[in-house]
């Protein structure tokens, strides 16, 4: 499954880039994220509660940052297992574009793969759920970053 969209953020490219590498902010914005711990500058372990249709499961997995081109783009990818609920893996190519000194457009290209019971039971719901989750992440990311910048954090 693939999807792409963009998000306008009221912050500079540098500020957005910093936020993209900040596990605290990522944790706040990943829907259902229970924990996100950095084990190296490019590797994190995460616990995420994921719900598709009738199946709700806690996924444990790792998140990796790669293809880093600061402050322009990186690839964020994750892979997790939810036990009997199945597994999910996917990633997003994130690209930043400066529209004005304090406005940055974040472009994202997401690909995701879901398997196991989640895929069986939620087949008809997966596309829309994944779309919703991705949009939710980037929307709250934009909001959090914008708010932080406005508050001078």
């Amino acid at each position, binding site marked *: 499954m693939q999807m792409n969209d963009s998000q306008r953020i009221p912050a500079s490219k540098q500020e957005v880039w910093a936020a993209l590498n900040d596990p605290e902010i990522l944790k706040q914005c990943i829907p259902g994220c229970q924990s996100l711990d950095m084990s190296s500058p490019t590797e994190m372990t995460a616990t995420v509660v994921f719900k598709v249709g009738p199946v709700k499961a806690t996924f444990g997995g790792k998140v990796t940052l790669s293809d880093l081109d600061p402050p322009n783009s990186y690839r964020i990818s994750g892979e997790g297992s939810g*036990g*009997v609920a*199945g*597994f999910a893996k996917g990633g997003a190519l994130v690209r930043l574009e400066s529209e004005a000194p304090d406005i940055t457009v974040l472009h994202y290209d997401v690909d995701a*793969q*879901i*398997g*196991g*019971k989640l*895929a*069986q*039971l939620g*087949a*008809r719901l997966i596309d829309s759920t994944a779309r919703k989750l991705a949009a939710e992440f980037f929307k709250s990311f934009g909001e959090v970053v914008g708010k932080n910048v406005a508050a001078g954090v």
Partner: protein
Amino acid sequence: MNDMTPTREQREAKLEGMGCKRKRVEDIRFTQGKGNYVDDVKLPGMLHGDFVRSPHAHARVKKIDDTEALKVPGVLAVITAETLKTVNLAWMPTLAGDVQMVLADGKVLFQNQEVAFVVATDRYAADDGINKVVVEYEPLPPLIDPFKAMDKDAPVLREDLAGKTTGAHGPRKHHNHIFEWTVGDKDLTDAAFRKAEVTFKEMISYHRTHPSPLETCQCVCSFDKIRGELTIWGTFQAPHVIRTVVALIAKLPEQKIHVISPDIGGGFGNKVGAYPGYICAAVASIVTGKPVKWVEDRIENLTATSFARDYHMTTEIASTKEGKVTGLRVHVLADHGAFDACADPSKWPAGFFNIVTGSYDFPTAHLSVDGIYTNKAPGGVAYRCSFRVTEAAYCIERAMDILAQKLGMDPAELRLKNFIKPEQFPYHSALGWEYDSGDYATAMKKAMETVKYSELRKEQSALREAFKRGETREIMGVGVSFFTEIVGAGPSKNCDILGIAMFDSCEIRLHPTGAGIARVGSKSQGQGHETTWAQIIATEIGIPADDIMVEEGNTDTAPYGLGTYGSRSTPVAGAAIAMAARKIKAKAQMIAAYKLEVHEDDLEWDIDGFRVKGLPEKTMSMKDICWAAYNSVPPGMEPGLEAVSYYDPPNMTYPFGAYICVMNIDVDTGVYKVRRFYALDDCGTRINPMIIEGQVHGGLTEAFAIAMGQEIRYDADGNVVTGSFMDFFMPTAVETPHWETDFTVTPSPHHPIGAKGVGESPNVGGVPAFSNAVNDAFSFLGSTHIQMPHDYWRNWKAAKDLGAVA
């Protein structure tokens, strides 16, 4: 005679023999919720097992960690392939000559494959245990598209077969190839195509679906350590075969294995095979010394135990300009999934698919089938049809319509022109079968007259014109299907399962009071054997059907039989019943002659007893003969009145039928409406017309489901996306159309009572009738063939692709 003496009609009616619409005796318990199914078996100390299953379609299993699972209260054991290796049961043989993993051995090859078996004190604890088993997988690229299976760079699925260039059915051409099966005269057929005035070639797919009985597959295994005996209650369509298979693979003496199939809530082919659940429950019981129950849930049933169909049939017909067929050429790509676990007679890797010449007089034909492995569940069972017969019927019936379209002929006329004629029977088909009897044109014409076929065609033309003028958005299709089945497997000369000839059997014991019990090697799963078997006996020996108890499914008491599937019960077991009854009748005649003090030849049969020829008042009823059999038999004769018959059929039987479906489709929404469905069946002698009608209703409903939406579909990663009744179309009374049934009677010349079998005909004939109706509706917009299933979305998509929808 006084007024109280029953008339001949009354005596006849009291028997409720063949031809009587006798009410189903088993329904007394079923309608009151008093059936006894496997899940009703509850034994003291019984444990429950359930599977950890693979979320991946193709992956290496790196590690299975059961530490946390074993800490769950109630969890007693976690069985893996490593455990099973200690008893040499990590792999099991399949009915098709392949081997299948019981539990994942190093690799998983389809989603929901069995990886570990958790045994616990109750089902909930088992499920909690499953959640705690941690399996580490290394995903491998899945192979889902069957057309890519034999690509050079296709992933290797079966590493266990590395280097094996020969399989159970001959040479293998590729690492994902199972077998190639060819029938017919290739040179003659190629020549017919070279000379043909008209030919076409079309890839006709019959998608993967599932028998989905309401009761899923299940068993209870109980091993008695002291006696060394294993008792298995299971949803088995063929209990004796299961007993023999268990004896062979578990190395237990066969007399110490007791297999019991209690009431079964539908089978439709899903319950023929042997599944990992049975093996694991048996091993768990042997290890723990306690009974172990395994019950599949719905998702497990749909995604792991045997699927049906998945045949991709490239079909060509050669014909004259006038529409006389001169040759048939078919190549099938058969997707068997991860293991070849087809439930066909052992020598028939593609079942009886060579019935694909159908009801038509093809002078020559050639068929080749390539079986291949993919990362999908294993199976390939006969979902309410004889082995691969429904695929064959769909193939030829769709192909005849395509030919008619190409020739600009009416599809019913084309069929009438090419039917095998009544005087050609017994008919030898180009692909090797000997059709026993048939009168196709009579059945076809009766169907056409009943539905007023020519008027339907006029209505259709008028509607098409209106559609072109933009006055309506509805299109109309008339689907014609004329099928010939091949059922009743089968003669020992060409049919066996693991070396056991496909006979069937019956033992009848008559009691002194004129009642009796019949034990039969078949096993009803809803077919009503308790009712119909007694009717055969009633007519044969004059004991009322109500006084005959029918028992099936217990391997300790029933004579060895090959079970119920492939519409074989009436053709094979039904014949055994009649033959056992005739043995009894022959002995009864000797007893009657002795008691009436005449020669046997002076007696004649009269409804329910013997009478002396020319002296109609001098009679002896069967009831009185039963009594005499236990106290005053002729000198030298053994007392008692019992008989056993094992029937090896001389030939298959060939039921046929003419089905017509009238359907309207709204092109803007794809929503269809089945306006009329007429089904004429000829199953030879009719034992119980009410049960036949019920069988036809059920089979047509399944055919409707399959043609119009029911599908086991995989996404590109190998996820089953139709794994529950939310996505797998299971029609209820709301969706199901009204069925009109009719019949002709052309008895089988070689069957003792002339019966041919009917249970599966409506599934075989129904699917092409629906699909032809949809294709017929769209044909005037320029389409030749639209693949099944024809759900709303696909109908809308077809209309869009053809330019009928903007």
